[in-house]
């Protein structure tokens, strides 16, 4: 806003002075110049990993899922571990774009686009696992309720696995639409910069004839708000439903009412770790340190402290309730997790998820990108192990000792998992090349945040126009009469 009230508590969201034109230039630059050798190297590795993964998936589809290490009692292991892991990764994207938007957290603006893209790619990776697990993926459409010629055979709407089908597909669709709607104004910016040719033609189609009309902007803002409002409960519902895959069963260690909130907290925890991993690389490679600032990283680490705390509390609660319930099977399941044959996995999980986030209490660590990067990887590993512990340790020791067994992943399972990382990074690297990874329109709107109006920097190409002095601008916010602070005017 022009008459923005400045508080000494606020710091600019874009740390270096930039004009609107410079911002456009900077954000569009990676798409408009030829890729660097670093990009080619990264892309080459990602595609190679993806190719290997695709080969392995091809082999198992041709052979049958007997090539997996699953056995009679451990019917789920790597497949569902990876599925839950990837779905969880996806959640931070929607959380950043929707929940932080509803809370008017303006610092989300320079990371939301990339985080949403990450969501889409992570959900694609996640969806692969149930589909492959079916054994005959070409019949995957059988999970949809459509009138068929097998009598009046319908899908079972009472099954949490079917709820998953609806949850994941809705989540993917709504996230994709949300992402695309957010992209339209930026696509128009790119279109108007492009010279005639394929790029211009493609962006012309994709930007749907956006003119920057404020009548459209006004409606656009309404739609964006509505989509954020719809996506927020969706985030919570998706992981809740995923947790119900377990919680509605009777297996000790799964049959717990704490699962929905616990899973959601874990998802946000791991998702933010992944956003940090990607953003730290991106900001350095593309030179966006002034847009994706230390403050962004710091805020995300604070969210990690909170969600890490929630996850730790959930672990403790589970243990306590297992003891307090007096249910011997439940008690055994949890003692077995901590001290049984898979204790190593349990303690990796505890070290990574319970202990490591507390390092973020130290400001030095919270503001060091290198330290954050390492810790974000540690948390990703920890959250993968959390899903592994939940799934495998509960299944390998159930009610009957006669059905006890051990599970070891085969190369096929490990290869499929690694292959999904190839898919994820291939898509992300392509995204960085072809679309603006920072929301141009939104960053422009926060350019004046905690700055005196839109004062152009001295090297601005635009003609500096004498602006009216804003006498209120430099006073602390309390000195401004409250009457002029309308809801829309107040920078939050």
């Amino acid at each position, binding site marked *: 806003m022009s008459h923005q009230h400045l508080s000494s508590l606020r710091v600019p969201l874009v740390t270096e002075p930039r004009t609107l034109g410079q911002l456009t230039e900077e954000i569009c630059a990676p798409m408009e110049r030829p890729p660097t050798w670093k990009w080619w190297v990264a892309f080459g590795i990602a595609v190679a990993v993806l190719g290997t993964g695709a080969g392995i998936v091809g082999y198992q589809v041709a052979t049958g899922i007997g090539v997996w290490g699953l056995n009679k009692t451990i019917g789920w292991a790597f497949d569902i571990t990876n599925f839950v892991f990837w779905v969880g990764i996806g959640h931070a994207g929607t959380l950043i774009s929707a929940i932080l938007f509803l809370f008017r957290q303006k610092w989300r603006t320079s990371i939301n686009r990339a985080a949403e893209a990450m969501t889409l790619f992570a959900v694609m990776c996640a969806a692969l696992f149930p589909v492959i697990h079916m054994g005959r993926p070409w019949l995957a459409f059988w999970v949809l309720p459509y009138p068929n010629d097998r009598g009046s055979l319908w899908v079972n709407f009472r099954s949490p696995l079917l709820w998953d089908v609806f949850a994941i597909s809705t989540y993917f669709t709504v996230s994709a*639409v949300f992402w695309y709607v957010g992209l339209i104004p930026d696509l128009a910016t790119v279109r108007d910069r492009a010279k005639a040719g394929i790029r211009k033609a493609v962006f012309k189609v994709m930007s749907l004839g956006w003119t920057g009309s*404020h009548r459209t902007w006004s409606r656009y803002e309404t739609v964006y708000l*509505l989509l954020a409002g719809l996506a927020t409960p969706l985030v919570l519902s998706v992981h809740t439903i995923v947790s119900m895959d377990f919680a509605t069963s009777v297996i000790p260690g799964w049959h717990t009412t704490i699962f929905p909130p616990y899973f959601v907290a874990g998802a946000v925890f791991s998702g933010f770790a992944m956003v940090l991993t990607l953003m730290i690389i991106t900001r350095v490679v593309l030179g966006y340190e002034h847009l994706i600032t230390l403050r962004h990283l710091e805020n995300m680490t604070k969210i990690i402290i909170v969600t890490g705390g929630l996850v730790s509390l959930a672990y403790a609660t589970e243990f306590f309730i297992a003891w307090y319930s007096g249910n011997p099977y439940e008690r055994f399941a949890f003692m077995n997790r901590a001290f049984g044959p898979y204790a190593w996995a349990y303690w990796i999980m505890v070290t990574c998820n319970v202990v490591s986030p507390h390092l973020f209490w130290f400001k030095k660590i919270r503001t060091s990108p290198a330290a954050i990067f390492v810790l974000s990887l540690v948390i990703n590993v920890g959250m993968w192990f959390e899903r592994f512990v939940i799934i495998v340790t509960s299944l390998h020791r159930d009610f009957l000792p006669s059905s006890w067994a051990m599970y070891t992943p085969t190369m096929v399972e490990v290869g499929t998992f690694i292959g999904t990382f190839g898919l994820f990074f291939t898509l992300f690297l392509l995204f960085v090349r072809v679309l603006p990874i920072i929301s141009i329109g939104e960053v422009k709107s926060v350019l004046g945040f905690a700055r005196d109006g839109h004062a152009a920097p001295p090297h601005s190409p635009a003609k500096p126009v004498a602006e009216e002095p804003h006498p209120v601008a430099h006073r602390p916010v309390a000195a401004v009469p409250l009457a002029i602070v309308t809801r829309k005017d107040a920078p939050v």
Partner: protein
Amino acid sequence: MSAPVLIGYFDSEAQVLDATRAVREAGFVLHDVYTPYAVHGLDDAMGLEPSRLTWVCFGGGLLGCTLALSLQLYTSVVSWPLNVGGKPFNSLPAFIPVSFELTVLFAALSTVAAFLLRAKLFPGSRRSVLPRVTDDRFAIAVAPREAPSELDAAEDLMRRHGAVATDLLEEVAS
């Protein structure tokens, strides 16, 4: 032939807000304002009504919920009743997750569809765009109610409010 439209270009958000308010208060007809990002406060300055898309969203959600419940009840109670452990066929709590998901899906898709229709955004649109308004310029488009001579007064007003350039166009897409 439509009346010519006067365009005033501005360099900053503050100026375009002031100028929009001034143009409207002076009695000119605002054709539209073009901005590179959503400028808050411009709705008030232009006197725009709140969007009715929220109602579309509500309707879409209601439709989704109804369809989802109908589908589940029809398939599980009428078409293929399956006795699982003596549980009721119309086990409503089990139908809530799918109903919720479809409510959200329908609400989201219908809102976006309504937005695109209302704002006339579609692939293959041939609307022309004013220079630099998707980059770093703000523009006000004024359509005169009666005589084109009014445009001189409007141009003067915009110049006084900091317009860096003005232009006269035959037709402008909104």
